[in-house]
């Protein structure tokens, strides 16, 4: 989807800042996500990538700034607000609870309750319904995990990431935010996870993805935001940059430039 002619801006961040005492982790960052694109966020360690994502999704309380969804200012003070606004986030290392089953992980915080009097009164979970939804989804996404009643820790890194990513399709009505989806994965598992990321588009999601892998940016993303020292150093169309340019922008060897 390289033709980004006046695509609708589904999510906009304006002047996002986060201060920890005297330390400025995020310094008045603006960011646009266009409908149907995969937007990469790159930058060195400590550049503010994760802080930006956490400020966007309400995982931390931002010092200042605002978030607009479909051009309307939307209050996002906690993860529940973000979810209500149609954002689904996969945090690095914080995607699944090891001790509970895949089914319980998928629906954690959004369980389906049995539609009976007792069910509604006591919050009785409807496991058959949840299992069926997961099986449908996994079939649609070609994720071949069948023993979904087993605890999450029984699965490989790739399988766990697939489960976490599929959560964005199940619940993220519009926006998926991924913090290093391939961080802990081997080469082959990374490829599969990234294929899954690009298939999110086909399911109507716009994607923001933090990554350290320049090849993934070039192969799978439409635009890239380069962060340095808590600020946006550059915004580029992926079609117009190469790996060396990106590395130069990340390290500061190449000075700030603004793409489209």
């Amino acid at each position, binding site marked *: 989807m390289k033709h980004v002619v006046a695509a609708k801006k589904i999510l906009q961040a304006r002047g996002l800042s986060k201060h920890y005492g005297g330390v400025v982790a995020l310094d008045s960052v603006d960011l646009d996500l266009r409908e149907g694109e995969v937007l990469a966020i790159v930058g060195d360690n400590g550049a503010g990538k994760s802080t930006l994502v956490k400020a966007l999704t309400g*995982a931390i309380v931002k010092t200042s700034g605002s978030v607009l969804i479909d051009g309307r200012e939307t209050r996002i003070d906690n*993860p*529940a607000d973000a*979810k209500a606004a149609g954002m689904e*986030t996969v*945090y690095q290392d*914080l*995607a*699944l*609870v*090891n*001790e*509970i089953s895949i089914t*319980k992980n998928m629906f*954690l*915080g*959004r*369980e389906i*309750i049995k539609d009976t009097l007792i069910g509604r009164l*006591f*919050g*009785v*979970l409807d496991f058959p319904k949840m*299992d069926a939804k997961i099986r449908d989804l996994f079939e649609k*996404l*070609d*994720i*071949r*995990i*069948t*023993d979904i*009643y087993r605890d999450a*820790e029984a*699965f*490989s890194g*790739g*399988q766990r990431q*697939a489960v976490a990513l599929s959560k964005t399709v199940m619940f993220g009505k519009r926006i998926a935010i991924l913090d290093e989806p391939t961080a802990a994965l081997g080469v*082959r*598992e990374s*490829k*599969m996870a990234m*294929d*899954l990321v690009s*298939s999110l588009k086909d399911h109507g999601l716009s994607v923001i993805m933090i990554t350290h892998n320049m090849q993934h940016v070039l192969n799978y993303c439409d635009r890239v935001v380069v962060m340095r020292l808590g600020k946006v150093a550059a915004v580029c169309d992926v079609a117009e940059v190469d790996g060396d340019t990106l590395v130069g922008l990340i390290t500061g060897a190449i000075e700030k430039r603004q793409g489209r």
Partner: protein
Amino acid sequence: MINQKSSEFVSVPQAKTNGWQILRYQFMQIWQVLAALILIYAVFFVLSPAFRNIDTLLSIFSQAAILAILACGTTVVLISGGLDLSVGSIFAVVGVVVGVLIKDYQLAYPVAIIGALVAGTCLGALNGVIQVVTKVPAFIVTLGGLTAYKGLAELLGSGKDLSRFPEGFQMLGSGYFAPICIMFGAALLTGLFLTKTRLGNHAFAIGGNEEVARLSGVKVARSRIYYYMIGGMFAATAAILEVSKLNFAQSSRGVSYELFAIAAVVIGGTSLFGGRGGVGKTIIGMLIMQTIIVGLAYLGVGTSFQRIAIGAIIILAVYWDVWRRQAR
């Protein structure tokens, strides 16, 4: 799309889970502690002739009953990654409260029971609220509760003769049948709560990884308060039963009951670190502890040595938990 030939995303194909599979899965969870219980019982059965009758077995169950009911609440709190050292003192407060309500206020005993249950639940809620609001660790808050509630029990009960209760009330805790039934009832309710309900399932998620639970939209603080309320409610249930059984109430009851409860939970195999466990294990853990206490007594071993033995078993049980975690 995902590569068809790759194996990482493919796991062993399995038919849909049915009741039998779930039952087998649950049995696999408890067979080790169950085997340990049977083995320990068998050892005493061989060693002591006096151990070989049904009365001994029933008295083990009925002695376990009151502490096991208390431990149902402790199970929930520990699974959620919390800790409650104050339930022994809540037990003391509730014992006095039910006594005062019946003897001083002349309330009908069912009303007094409801009042006492509410009192225990409120004290549990206080534990939770203080933790959530002040962010002081559970260990400290409930250690404070251990002393403070003890003082409250003494204030409420001082200079009062709380004994000789109405006959209907005495029925609850006397004999074998009623306490054992109430124990299994409490265990069944707790089990259904933990496995079937949203709030119960959240206990495992919060105990497993509180941050993931929070980011997933689980209302962690509110849920925690509920778990401490459940702990307080089961402490109250146990206290009411004991008052009924002894036919008197005293503020000095319940001392170190919280430790026995935690011991039973851990011996049963519920993780001290949260996220894993179940109430069936706790009941078996409590039966193991009572079997050892009764068995050693039958062999003429004094209470001091019984305590040393229980202490050693607690350490072994936690060591096993730690070892299992590292093995993963």
